[in-house]
């Protein structure tokens, strides 16, 4: 799969936030790890730019859905780790349901002959 196939995931508004929240559901990660996780788990389709990733993270902080903490990375550098708050967990669940609904609906429309 070439670089041209990688798309920024802002097709649907709010998707970036949802993906980031989902990537944190398994535990805390730093920004780079979040980007890697999303790329890997989307089969290298979704690629987050710095700008959209960190803007989204600041937005999540502002809304109180994630909290941040500085810690040491795998290679012993200072890195900022993000973790879901309980409000974030609730938001993730609600957004996932809504997203499913929308996607199913869109697919239904697209498949209608």
């Amino acid at each position, binding site marked *: 799969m070439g670089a041209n196939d990688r798309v920024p995931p802002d097709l649907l508004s709010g998707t970036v936030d949802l993906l980031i929240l989902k990537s944190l559901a398994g535990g805390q990660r730093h920004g780079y790890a979040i980007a890697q996780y999303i790329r890997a788990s989307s089969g290298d389709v979704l690629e987050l730019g710095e700008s959209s990733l*960190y803007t989204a993270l600041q937005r999540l902080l*502002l809304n109180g859905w994630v909290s941040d903490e500085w810690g040491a990375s795998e290679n012993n*550098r200072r890195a900022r780790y993000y973790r879901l708050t309980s409000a974030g967990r609730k938001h993730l669940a609600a957004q996932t349901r809504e997203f499913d609904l929308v996607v199913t609906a869109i697919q239904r429309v697209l498949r209608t002959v």
Partner: protein
Amino acid sequence: MRLFRRLKYLLHRGRRERELAEELVFHRDLAEQEQRHAGLPPEEVRRATNLQMGNTTLAREAAHHVWFPAAIEGVLQDLHYAWRGLSRSKALLAVACLSLGLSTGFGTALFNVVNGVILQPVTVTRPDALVRFWVGNGNRISWPNLHDICDQTPSVSCVGHRVDELMWQQRDESIRLFGQAVSPHYFTMLGIQVTQGRVFTSETVRETPDTVLVTHAFWERQLGRDPHVIGRTLVLTGHPYTVIGVLPRGFRSIWGLGIAPSLYLPAGSAARPATTRRGDAEYELLGLLGPGQSLAEFRSRVTARATGLQEAYPVENRGFGRVQTFPFHSLGLFLSSEDQVMRVIVLFASLIVVLVLLLAVIACVNIAGLLVARAVARQREIAIRLSIGCGRLRLARLLLAEGLLLAIIGVGLGGVASIWLARLLVAVPLPFPVPFEVEVPVDLHLFGYLAAMVALTAMVIGVAPLLQAFRVSVVRGTGSAPRAVGFRRWSLRGTLITVQIAMSTVLLVATTLFVRSLWGASQIDPGFDMAHVVTVEADTRSPQLTAAEVGAYYRAAIDRLNNVPNVVAVSGAIVVPLSMGSIVNSLLVDVGSKDRAVTVNSNWILPDYFRVMGIPLRSGREFSETDREDRPRVAIVNETFARRLFAGQSALGQRVRRPASDGNPEPWAEIVAVVADSHYLTLGEEIRPQVYWPFGSGVGNMTVHVRTESGGSGFAQGLQDILTGVDSRVPVRVRPLSSVMAVALFPAQAAAMVLAGLGLVGWALTIAGLYGLVAYTVTRRIPEIGVRVALGATPSSVMRLLLRDGLAIAIVGVAAGLIVASLATPFLSMFLAGVAPRDVTSFSVVAAALILTALAASYGPARRGMRLSPTDALRAE
């Protein structure tokens, strides 16, 4: 929560931005590392990463704007720039802050106090259901009648009340207090709650009558916030009373205007024993309509009961078939009475609002003038900005930001000042013993008001320089055109000053007229001379004194006082006018075929009363000692009485008598004098017919009036000592008449003070603004001065030139202003009492003051300019 996090971000903005930068570097390093691992050559790594990652700076800005939206940041940038500009012109900033601060500060404080004092409803659960009513011919009825009407009429709730002066005896001194004696069920009927203890009710009073409720202010100021006040004993007029409750803070008595008695005691308790005589009219009535009850129904039930009482006691209760009801205003009794106080207060309040707005306009005109002057001076800067691509919209935003910033600073200062001013006003010790609390609400209303002021001011002061800026031409503006333009060429600057002077003239004339008119209205002549009269209030109600001793005491006291040097005359009266006490009752006048009943203000006086009070005798004579023996009976009436009842004929020799009491018809009394009118209950009232009776030879509590050649506080102390020498058991209080009347005089005095303050602020603002503007523009001419001096002009000729220019402009401005004012003020005539709309004095004083200000403002900078050497002056720009 989001707002809170935003604020936290702003507080730690520096750290948060560093953290983000560090995070981005970390991210990039990891990305590059990954590319290297993928086997890209080193020069390709960075390019690939950049491609993948995007612009880091943009990322940082985008992240920053999450917390801090770009629109807000733009405004803050404008404000920051505006602040930099303004902080360089300190004088402008100072005048602006002063003008806005003073006008909003004063205005807001005034609104606060007016709101706190006047516009608060009385503390009653259903003020709309209250009704004042008279039974029979007077405003008061006796205790037995009160009991029969209010306690024994089905479906009628009513209470009686009266204000009593009480002496509160402490260890070594007596303090005179106002107490309100009320029916025992007063508090339960009106729904008044207490914060500590309990209220008295009909049941508790039956068991323990001598109980008292104190107001919060009394508890705070005179009982020292005693935590064990409930159960404490107060000795009132010789009788021990138990405090059973404290009324809440902010309690408003039925009087309104923030005036409240110090304490409430049950009518019929020891200090105010119930008399069983039906003729002794003592209590005023206040009724409460039941839910769904109409006024007509209430009146008919009271009338039925009163008619029954008239049949049972035909002599004492003559005229009881007549029941009059009067509306109760929720702002209190003072505003409910039929006199003109209400109208005066409404008019006064609305005029104050007009004045406050005028002040705000003056302040705005000041600042706008300075900003326009500054914009003119900045033509070059503005032209350069325009020519290097600053959009007109952006320019407009910048200039509006200056207005907004000035408005925020000025109004903010004003807001702070107003809170302080209002506290100061409230803390002024009042000249009378009536507790008087004004709460200064620092609430959302206040902030809303201030915000509205900011918006309004910013718009008014921002738009003028804006219009000016839009006229700047890039080509001409970048040259040196605005330099060295004299006044005489009717430059923009000269026009600006002329307009400002004209506007100042109009505003100042209006302000002065308003202030003069209201001042005049607040200086109502009471009809007697307060300056030289001292009153002696002796409390002879103590149970230790026999009736004979009381009589002897007054005779001895008056004798002693008559022999004091500096005392001109001594007299006495039951009612001291304008002191909240009143006796209103009916009188029968012999008009030929049948008696005619009139409602009159009454007073009982000793000989020499009119001489002491300085009330002129129009005809006839004062009472003499022999008149006190009751035969033949005599009376004195005021001019209103004589005019209304004996129009065209002499009142002397006519006959009047009181309605019968105690079963015997009263004998006729002959009118022996007519005296000038004087005020009785309030200064705003319409004068009523008044009758004076000779104080009988019997016993009675009265206020002794002493006329002195010159009043003086040391003198009062001397009298006090003399009277204590007469009988040490009688508590005595000696005060100037003016302080006894303080309650009645207070509104007028407060009004006068407020008006004087407003007028002063208005003048100060106008003068300061005009001075600032003229001085500023003359300063801009310093280079021109340099050129003139360099070309050989003598200092005196330059000074003459500058002053002549200043004078010409001032005269043109003032003339224009006077013309506009004389066209406009007739429209104000309905608000102007006692002052002609084109009052020559006001007009000329304003004109002279403004011309002098303009000259003085030209002189100062001109002198400075001349002291500079020509080279310095030329370099000044």
